[in-house]
């Protein structure tokens, strides 16, 4: 890969922000999963998944998202999503994902929320 499609940034207070750019399918899903688990395995307190650059999510991408939601729940880590395009937000509602993860319009709102919950 010539450019980084999944990046991680330290958001303060043990919270990391993972940016997912492109088409969330099998390849990008694996990268996203690895980035989130790296944070959790390193003892991070919480993760914000920033979907601002995510154009589309396919069924395999949803499968990865569901896996992450479940794994974070098992580890009692906090998780929030932010900056979703409308179509992806509706997809999360339709698949039931949004019932278990807080969705925020902006990264700042998500970080504030997680800082209070941790």
């Amino acid at each position, binding site marked *: 890969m010539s450019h980084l499609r999944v990046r991680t940034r330290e958001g303060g207070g043990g919270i990391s922000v993972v940016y997912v750019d492109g088409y969330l399918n099998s390849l990008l899903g694996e990268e996203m999963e690895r980035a989130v688990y790296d944070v959790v395995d390193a003892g991070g307190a919480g993760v914000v998944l920033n979907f601002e650059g995510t154009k589309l999510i396919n069924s395999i991408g949803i499968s990865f998202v569901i896996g992450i939601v479940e794994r974070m729940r098992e580890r009692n880590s906090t998780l929030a999503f932010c900056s979703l395009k409308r179509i992806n937000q509706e*997809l999360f509602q339709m698949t039931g994902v949004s019932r278990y993860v807080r969705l925020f319009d902006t990264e700042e709102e998500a970080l504030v929320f997680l800082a209070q919950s941790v």
Partner: protein
Amino acid sequence: MSSLPRASEAGSRRPKGYLAGGIGTVYKLRAIRDFAFGLSRARNFDESLRLALMVIMGTFSILKGVIFLEENGEFHARVSRGLPPGILPVPKSKDLLRFLRRTRKPVTVRRKGTAAVVKRTAGELESAVPALSAEILCPLGTKKGVLGILLLGPTLTGQELTPRQRETLGVMASFLSANISNHRVVLEISSLNDVLRVQVQENKRLLAKMREIYLDTIRAFAAAIDAKDPYTRGHSERVAKLSVSIARGLGLPEEDVQAIHIASILHDVGKIVTDRAILVKSSALTRAETRQLQKHPKTSYDILSEIRFPYPDVALLARHHHEWMDGSGYPDAKRDHQIPVGARIIAVADAFDAMMSNRPYRKSLPLTHAIAEIRDYVNHHFDPQVARVFFRILRKGLNGERGKVPFLPKEGNGFSRREVLRFLDGTLEEFP
């Protein structure tokens, strides 16, 4: 998941515009497309199964799933997601087989009215995968038989699949079954190929051995003829080698080359009925003796046409090896292309070897003399194309390009390789 705190719906809005009520259909269609892509584009079989499982789980928001495939009388977990490794194989029980033979569509396990056999089957599978609470059992198979089982856990929301969703899952499962079945066919074909390859090698070996035995028999036969005429010992074998070289040089099909090989070994077999006195006579033959000697190609034909050779026209080639291009040969006075090409080849090889051998009535001729003789009789006796290839073979032989040439004399005794090569080059200039 029901124990999870529900996230607030603060960030969500109601779908508007074309998405209202449509996103489900779009997502489902895309999922079916992803499913087909996953099956066709995967780098290997296991990846195709993994992608198929992920599409299914993503489409229906399912947390855990496993695909069992039937292998060696057991069901083995081939791919899984959301489950710890180390899933045990499941033996083929009566219940399991009964369920798989009876059921074609996905079934929900925990429902009122679910058949007892389904519940028992789910129980057997769960004992191999304790981390999975089985919700959906989906048989994998074709009309030909059972291939495996797709076992799925609960959905993210804990809701049961709707009848429509089960229908979509059924379509995906049948695609998946076709993919597994194709993979099995490919495996069977490749193992069959291995068996065939070994068989073909064995057949080739046997065929080569049989051909050797067959050639040995023919050589023994030819040796019997040569034995009758001590002056021509080894003649048949040398003519055969040269004839085969010319036939290959002319680019003839392998079947014709083999026919020429056999015919050139046996071309003089008719001499078996010629009086030995005639064969070894050192003075000129009488007309009656010449007539008798000239019967040998026809006699060769009569003998050889009784044998069923695996190559075409062997007897005919022996019959015509003394025919000349201008029609002055025997036994049928054929000319030009009426004479089979194999016979035209044997004629050149036979004449050359005769000139290079000691005869009862003369000593062997010098090599340049023999070459000149063939050159001078091109178009009268010999085919120019055959002669040209013959000269080239001779040149290659003299240059050492073809290893030892058995019909060439040794250096010395009036034979100079360089001189002959110069002579050959001059001759070849006349045959562009």
